């Protein structure tokens, strides 16, 4: 039936037909307009923070290793401390979000490749101690070889730490997350890079922060480009990203990320103050992106349209 396609292009228009209150939309059926899916029970700040801090930590570990290899001790130290601090807070947010926090260790009761949260827990169980060892060795100025090894191992795990959370979100029935399963890891990789670059710009001296400035630009290009590609390919289920609070958050994220990267590239060398402004913008942009993606997914689960219409279209396409 061709009735669905045209009717949904405009988005958000369906409440306009006041006279058909009992039928939420002429173009698709639902049970009293109620959602089909259960929306995620995750708390916005806990899980938004967990996503943001994980990205910040993972990409910071890469900066830390690069700084170590290129003899930039100050950049290395802030990146190591940033990674250790961010991943600790990320773990705390994850545990705080559990319905039964005291049972957190049950995550490590099994090894389950079909569960991104299980594999992620194992990944963090390996990664978090490495970042702490790297930071502790650097700050203490002792056990340099062990510290360097920990820095290298943390950097090897960093990309996985920054991207597995995209799989975690996409591996659900939530329409606007699942439909982005190809691009979302790239969005999160870019967002992790901009966050780590932002932290480094905020905390490292200007003369060592060159790689962070370049990482800000490259990360911003990856984040914004992958995000636009994602929503451009999604069809109907891109709507939740383009309406209401998620739209505000995501537009803000884009402005902060692009602006922060541009400022870092153009003026980041001119002084700590400008670099700090750029860094703060990049950190805030990354956080806004995570919160926006989170809220868009929740919104897509709350409206039966995003569950029913794409599935109907699939059935009709299959004949």
């Amino acid at each position, binding site marked *: 039936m061709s009735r669905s396609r045209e009717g949904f292009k405009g988005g958000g228009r369906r409440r306009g037909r006041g006279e058909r209150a009992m039928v939420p939309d002429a173009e698709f059926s639902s049970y009293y307009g109620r959602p089909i899916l259960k929306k995620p029970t995750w708390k916005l700040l806990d899980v938004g923070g967990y996503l943001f801090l994980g990205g910040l930590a993972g990409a910071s570990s890469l900066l830390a290793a690069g700084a170590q290899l290129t003899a930039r001790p100050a950049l290395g130290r802030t990146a190591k401390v940033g990674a250790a601090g961010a991943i600790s807070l990320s773990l705390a947010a994850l545990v705080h979000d559990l319905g039964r926090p005291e049972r957190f260790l049950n995550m490590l009761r099994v090894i389950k490749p079909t569960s991104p949260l299980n594999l992620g827990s194992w990944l963090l169980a390996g990664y978090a101690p490495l970042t702490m060892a790297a930071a502790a060795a650097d700050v203490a100025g002792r056990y340099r070889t062990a510290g360097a090894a920990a820095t290298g191992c943390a950097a090897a795990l960093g990309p996985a730490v920054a991207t597995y959370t995209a799989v975690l979100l996409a591996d659900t029935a*939530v329409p606007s997350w699942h439909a982005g399963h190809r691009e979302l890891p790239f969005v999160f990789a870019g967002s992790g890079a901009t966050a780590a670059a932002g932290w480094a710009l905020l905390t490292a001296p200007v003369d060592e922060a060159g790689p962070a400035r*370049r990482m800000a630009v490259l990360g911003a290009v990856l984040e914004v480009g992958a995000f636009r590609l994602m929503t451009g390919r999604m069809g109907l289920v891109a709507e939740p990203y383009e309406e209401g609070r998620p739209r505000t958050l995501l537009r803000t994220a884009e402005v902060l990320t692009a602006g922060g990267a541009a400022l870092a590239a153009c003026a980041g060398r001119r002084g700590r103050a400008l670099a700090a402004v750029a860094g703060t913008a990049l950190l805030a942009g990354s956080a806004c992106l995570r919160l926006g993606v989170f809220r868009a997914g929740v919104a897509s689960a709350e409206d039966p349209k995003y569950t029913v219409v794409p599935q109907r279209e699939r059935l009709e396409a299959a004949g």
Partner: protein
Amino acid sequence: MTDDIARAAGHTDPPPRMGFFTDTSVCIGCKACEVACKEWNAVPEDGLDLTGMSYDNTQGLGASTWRHVAFIEQTAPPAGHENVDVFDAARGLSASDTPGELRWLMSSDVCKHCTHAACLDVCPTGSLFRTEFGTVVVQEDICNGCGYCVPACPYGVIDQRPGDGRAWKCTLCYDRLGEGMEPACAKACPTDSIQFGPLDELRERAAGRVAQLHAAGTVDARLYGEDPGDGVGGDGAFFLLLDQPEVYGLPPDPVVTTRDLPAMWRHAAAAGASLAALAVASFVRRSR
């Protein structure tokens, strides 16, 4: 064939896969199933709202509602029939399902106990498991309330119970099955709308019932969730419906999310590699 999933889950010599066939064409909306489920499983109260949704104040499945009877009042032709020629229809007035006539659809919804269960796949603790009967059950002494199963379920069945923190859903009365008894809802159903038994047998019975209804002129009768070729590998609890699934609040073509998981990991690996390359590129030119 249908006990393969229990074998795959590590059960040696499992009994036949058990399930529900809910024939909504004979449901009278008495809600005895809801009450029996609550009583047997000691499921707590789930809010006492007046919704205005026909006779349905239960609203939907959830952590503390494991059977839910939907009520749909239709005064128009069922959705998807908007191209019906009314003059043709008027000529056949003696046939059933005359457009404009009031009809009530009632349907007792329940966990589908999917062949490929997303809740079970994504559960990080192994709390959700496949029983020897091929059903999907939460172990409440293991669940740490991570909530991952909640958005993973394509049917919106499982949920986290406020105050308790853990995830809960229908167990297909695992305790009763172990004693050779049928689940409480099926036992209480006065019209045999809820039928319990080995899944193979239920599928045969359901096919016969659809043929019978079609022969009697109820051409809208269709099975939902019985096809092992669907996106969840077929449901352990399937239905006979009289309208499109979404009218009952069911997804028309659910797919287990983990079907795409290998592709997701591949893309995440590529994204991780991009991030590493991006970091290397950031250090290539020294600007000191």
